[in-house]
C-alpha cells in the first residue's frame, strides 16, 4: 500500500510537470513521434545525435529502438508480417532489394530530388546505386563499408616491394616473394574459406555481370567470373594462403601481428581493431591499400547501411527530416567520430578529420570504385552458394569449368520463383 501511495504521488508530480512544461513546448500529444530502429553499435550512439535534432525540430520526438544485428533481419520480417514496422530504420544495403520486393519501403525519389541537403552527386556512385532498386530510390546511404587490402609494410619491404600491389600481376609477384621469404609455416594472404566477400570483390572487378538477364539467371560461367575464380584458386594452389576457415585462425589480429600472413582483405572496422590490438612495436608496420584489379586498381564491394522509410509510416515528412539531418556532412563527421563508420559523402571526407587519416585514404580511393552486388532478394543465398562452390574448387574436388556450370545450375534453381514473379508481373 505504501508503495502504491508513492507511485500515485510520483504520477501526479509527472502530471504537474507535463502541465507546467506544456506551457512552453508543444505537449506530448501534439508532438509527432517517430519510431526509429537502429542496429548494433549505431543503435547505441545514435541517442547522442538526436537531442540536437529535437531542438531544431521541436515538433518531433524520436523514439529509438536498438536491435542486435543477429536478430534484426528476423525482427524486421516479423514486423512486416505483423504490420508493426517503425517509421524509419537503419537497413543493411544488401537487404534493400528484399524489402523492396516486399514493397515495404517508401519511394524516396521525389524527396531526394527536392532536398537541399541530400544531393546524389556528393555520394559515392557505387554506394548510392545499392539503394536504387528497379529504377526507384529506396534508401539514403548512412555509412559505407567496402573491402580493401590490409598489409604488412615490413614484410613487403623484406620481399623487395616498397608499395602495395596495384594489379593482379603485381600482387602475384608480391605474394610469391613474401611466401618465399616466409617459409612453409607462414603465408602471403589470409582468405577465410567461410567468407564470400574476397571472391565477390574479385568477381565484381570483371566486366561480366554476376547475374544475367535482369537477375533472372546465374552468370557465373562467364569468362569474367571464371577468371576471378581461377585467380582465387590459384592463390591456394600456390600455397600462398592457408586452407582454413576462421575456426583455425584463433585471432586474426594477433596472427597478423606475428606475420602469419602479410595480406588480409577486410573492411573499415578493422582500422580501429588493428590500432587497438596490434602491439605498439608493430604499429608502424601496417597500412591499407585499394584492392588490386586485373589491370590496375580494381573494384570492390559496396556495403554499409542505409536509412529507409517504411511505406506503412504516417510520418513520412518528419522521417525525411531526420534522414536529412543525419545526412548533413557535420552530422556524418560526428557520427564517424562516435562509431568509426565511414561517411558516404565526399564532403564529409574532405572537411573532417578523415582527410588526415592515413589508414582511411585507401577506403576513400576504393569507394570511388565500389560496385554493388546484384540487387535481387536472393543474393545472400547466391553468394553463399558461390563461396561453397569456391571451397570445392580450392579443395580440388571439382574443376573450374564444372564448378561454374554447376553453380549456374544451382543459382538458376534459386531464381526460379523470381523468374515466375517477373513473368507474371508482365502479363497481369
Amino acid at each position, binding site marked *: 500500500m505504501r508503495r502504491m501511495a508513492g507511485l500515485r504521488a510520483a504520477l501526479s508530480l509527472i502530471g504537474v510537470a507535463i502541465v507546467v512544461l506544456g506551457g512552453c513546448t508543444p505537449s506530448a500529444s501534439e508532438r509527432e513521434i517517430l519510431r526509429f530502429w537502429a542496429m548494433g553499435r549505431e543503435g547505441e550512439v545514435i541517442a547522442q545525435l538526436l537531442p540536437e535534432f529535437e531542438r531544431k525540430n521541436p515538433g518531433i520526438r524520436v523514439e529509438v529502438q536498438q536491435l542486435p544485428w543477429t536478430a534484426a533481419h528476423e525482427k524486421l520480417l516479423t514486423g*512486416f508480417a505483423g504490420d508493426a514496422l517503425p517509421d524509419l530504420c537503419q537497413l543493411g544495403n544488401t537487404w534493400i532489394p528484399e524489402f523492396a520486393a516486399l514493397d515495404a519501403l517508401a519511394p524516396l525519389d521525389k524527396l531526394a530530388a527536392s532536398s537541399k541537403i541530400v544531393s546524389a552527386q556528393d555520394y559515392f556512385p557505387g554506394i548510392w546505386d545499392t539503394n536504387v532498386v528497379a529504377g526507384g530510390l529506396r534508401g539514403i546511404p548512412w555509412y559505407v563499408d567496402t573491402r580493401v587490402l590490409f598489409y604488412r609494410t615490413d614484410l613487403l619491404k623484406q620481399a623487395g616491394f616498397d608499395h602495395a600491389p596495384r594489379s593482379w600481376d603485381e600482387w602475384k609477384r608480391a605474394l610469391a616473394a613474401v611466401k618465399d621469404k616466409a617459409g612453409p609455416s607462414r603465408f602471403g594472404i589470409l582468405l577465410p574459406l*567461410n567468407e564470400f566477400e574476397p571472391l565477390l570483390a574479385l568477381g565484381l572487378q570483371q566486366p561480366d555481370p554476376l547475374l544475367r538477364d535482369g537477375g533472372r539467371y546465374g552468370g557465373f560461367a562467364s569468362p569474367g567470373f571464371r577468371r576471378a575464380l581461377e585467380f582465387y584458386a590459384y592463390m591456394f594452389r600456390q600455397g600462398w594462403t592457408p586452407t582454413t576457415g576462421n*575456426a*583455425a585462425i584463433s585471432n586474426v589480429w594477433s596472427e597478423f601481428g606475428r606475420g602469419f600472413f602479410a595480406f588480409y582483405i577486410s573492411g573499415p572496422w578493422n582500422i580501429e581493431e588493428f590500432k587497438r590490438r596490434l602491439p605498439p612495436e608493430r604499429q608502424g608496420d601496417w597500412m591499407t591499400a585499394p584492392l588490386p584489379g586485373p589491370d590496375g586498381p580494381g573494384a570492390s564491394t559496396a556495403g554499409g547501411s542505409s536509412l529507409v522509410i517504411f511505406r506503412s509510416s504516417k510520418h513520412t515528412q518528419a522521417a525525411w527530416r531526420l534522414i536529412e539531418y543525419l545526412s548533413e556532412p557535420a552530422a556524418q563527421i560526428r557520427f564517424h567520430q562516435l562509431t568509426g563508420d565511414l561517411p558516404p559523402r565526399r564532403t564529409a571526407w574532405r572537411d573532417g578529420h578523415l582527410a588526415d587519416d592515413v589508414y582511411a585514404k585507401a577506403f576513400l580511393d576504393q569507394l570511388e570504385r565500389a560496385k554493388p552486388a546484384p540487387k535481387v532478394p536472393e543474393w545472400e543465398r547466391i553468394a553463399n552458394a558461390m563461396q561453397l562452390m569456391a571451397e570445392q574448387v580450392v579443395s580440388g574436388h571439382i574443376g573450374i569449368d564444372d564448378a561454374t556450370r554447376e553453380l549456374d545450375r544451382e543459382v538458376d534453381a534459386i531464381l526460379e520463383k523470381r523468374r515466375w*514473379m517477373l513473368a507474371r508481373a508482365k502479363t497481369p
Partner: protein
Amino acid sequence: MKLSVIAWGFVAPAIIVIGTFFVLPVFTGLALSLTDFDIYALANLRNLRFVGLDNYLRLLRTPLFWQALGNTFYFVVVGVPLSIGLSLGSALLLHARVARFKPFFRTALFAPVVTTLVAVAVVWRYLFQTRYGMVNYALAHIGIDPIDWLGNPHLAMPTIILLAAWKNFGYNMVIFLANLQAIPEDVYEAARIDGASSFQQLLYVTLPMLKPTLLLVGILTTAGYFQLFAEPYVMTQGGPLRSTVSVLYFMYEEGFKWWNFGTASTVAVLLFGLILAVTWGFMRITKDEVNA
C-alpha cells in the same frame, strides 16, 4: 448422454491445448510442405503456389540433402554405439565393488550433461585448435604432426561425434547405474556357484537383465542423435565442405536463413518419417529376438 457431455467438458481443456499447440502446428507444417511459402509469399499470399509433391521430389534430387542425410547417418551409426558403450562402461566401472570415491566420479562424469553446450563448444574449439590446441600439443609429444581437426572434411565429423558422445554419455550412465543397482545380488551368487567367471557373469547375467533398459536408451539416443543440430551449429557452421551439415541443420538454413518455409517443412516431414521408421524398426527387431 449427459454423462458424456460432462466427460467431454473435463477433457476439453486438455484437447484444446493439445489441438492448438500440437495438432494444428503439425498439420500446418504438413500443409506448408506442399507449398512454396517464402519471402515473396510473406509479402502477398498471391505469390504462394501450391506445388503438391514437388518439394519432396526436388529435395530428393538435391545433392546437399543427401549429403546431410549421409552425415546424419554417419553421426548416428558411429555416435550412438560409442555413446551407449561409454555410458555402459562407465556405469559398470562405477558399480564395481572395488571402485573408490563413487559419488565424486558420478558427479564428475555427469557434469558434461548439465554444462551449457555453447560454453563446452568454446572450450572444445580451443582444445582442437590446429596451432595452439592442447590436443595437437599432446600429440606433438609423441611425434604426430598437427592435425586440422575442425578444418579437415574427413575429421570434422569424428570430432563432432566425440564432442556429442562426451557431452551426452553421463545421462545414460545414470540410467544404467540405477538399473545395475536394481539387479538382485542372488542372481550373481547363483552364477558364481555355477562357476561363471566375471566376464561370463557380465555376458549372461548383467546384459540380459539390462536388456529393457538398453532398448529404451537405444531408442531415445537414436531419436535424439538424428536431431543433430547444436553441435555443428556452434562448432563448424556445417563446414568444412558441408561435411557436418545434418538434416536438421539443413532445415534450419532453408527455413530461417533463406526463408523457404515450404522446403523447410518438407525436410521436417521427411525427418519425422525417418525417425519413426528407424524407431519402429528398432522395436521390431528386439521384439523378434525376445520371441525367438
